[in-house]
C-alpha cells in the first residue's frame, strides 16, 4: 500500500514510542523537474527501515545513509542532490532536476 503523509508522520510517532531512533527527511527545495514536491517526507529508523519518499527512489539510499549519522549525533543537516553533482552517477536525479533535503532527528 502507498503511504500518505498521514501514515508517515503517524508512523514516525509510533516508532519513537517503540523506542527506536528516528530521522525525518523533508524536501525543502526543488529546481527543474523533480519527482516529489516540496514538503514530501521520508522517515528512517536506526536500523535503516524507512517509509515515504523524497524522490522517485533516486537518492533515497544516500538520504538513508546520512540519516544514520543524524540519529547518532542529533544534528540536522541539509543535503543537495542533482545531475550537476560530481556523484551524479551514484545518487543523481535521472530526471535532470535538483533537490534540497533537510534531514533532522525526531528526539
Amino acid at each position, binding site marked *: 500500500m502507498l503511504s500518505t503523509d498521514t501514515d508517515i508522520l503517524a508512523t514516525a510517532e509510533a516508532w519513537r514510542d517503540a523506542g527506536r531512533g528516528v530521522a525525518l527527511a523533508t524536501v525543502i*527545495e526543488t529546481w527543474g523537474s523533480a519527482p516529489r514536491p516540496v514538503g514530501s517526507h521520508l522517515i528512517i529508523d536506526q536500523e535503516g527501515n524507512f517509509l515515504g519518499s523524497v524522490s522517485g527512489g533516486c537518492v533515497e539510499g544516500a538520504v538513508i545513509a546520512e540519516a544514520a549519522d543524524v540519529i547518532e549525533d542529533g544534528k540536522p543537516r541539509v543535503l543537495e542532490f542533482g545531475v550537476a553533482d560530481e556523484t551524479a552517477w551514484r545518487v543523481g536525479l535521472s530526471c535532470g532536476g535538483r533537490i534540497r533535503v*533537510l534531514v533532522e532527528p525526531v*528526539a
Partner: protein
Amino acid sequence: MKLDILREMNRERAARRAVILVTDTADGGQRLVRETEAEGDPLAAELADRFRSGRSGTVEAEGRSLFLTVQVPPPRLVVIGAVHISQALAPMAQATDLDVTVIDPRTAFATPERFPDVTLLPLWPDDALAQLPPLDRYTALAALTHDPKIDDPALIAALKAESFYVGALGSRKTHGKRVERLTAAGLAPEQIARIAAPIGLDIGAVSPAEIAVSVLAQVIASLRQDRRRAPA
C-alpha cells in the same frame, strides 16, 4: 523535530485543523503555528498565503532561511447516496487517498455488504454530518441519490462550508429545479453556481463505474486546480 511537536502535528491532522511548522534550516529550531493563531505571528501575511495554497516552501525572514511545512487536513470525499455509482466510486476514491464516507438514510441501500471497507452512515445527511468532523474547504461532496429530500440538505451544508468540490447527479432539467429550491432556501447565485451539474467530466460515461471515473476525475481536477494546464 521535537517529539512533542510531531505529536501535536498528528493530533491536529486527526482533528482536521491546518497547521504550519516553521523550521530554521540553519539550526533546526522549530515552532508550530495553528491557523487560528497565525494573525499575531511575525510571518502573518506569508502564513495566510500558505494556509490558502496548502503549499510548503522556503521564506527568507530577518536574514534567516525558514522552511514552512504546511499541513492541511487530508482531502476527503463525502458521498450522499449508497447507490450503484457509489459502490464503484468509493473504492476508486480510496485508491487515490481520499478519505471516503457514504451517507444514505435508506437502510436497504446502506448495507455493509454493498459497501465493505468504507465508512457508511445509514442516517439522514444532517444527522450523519453532525457525527463527522465538520465539512470544510478540504472536503468534496457528491450528491448521488436523485432525491431532493436527501441531496439538498447535504448540498446546502457543503456550499456553506465552502467545500472544494460540490457535485450533484441529475439532468439539466433536474438541476434547474434544484437551483430554484436552493434559491428559495436562501443560497446566493454564486454559491449555487459552484455545483458541478450535471455531475462529472464529460467523458461520455455510460455505466455506473464509468460515471464514477468521471466524478472522481472532476474531484481531482478541483483539488489540483492550481496545477492544471488548461480548464477542463
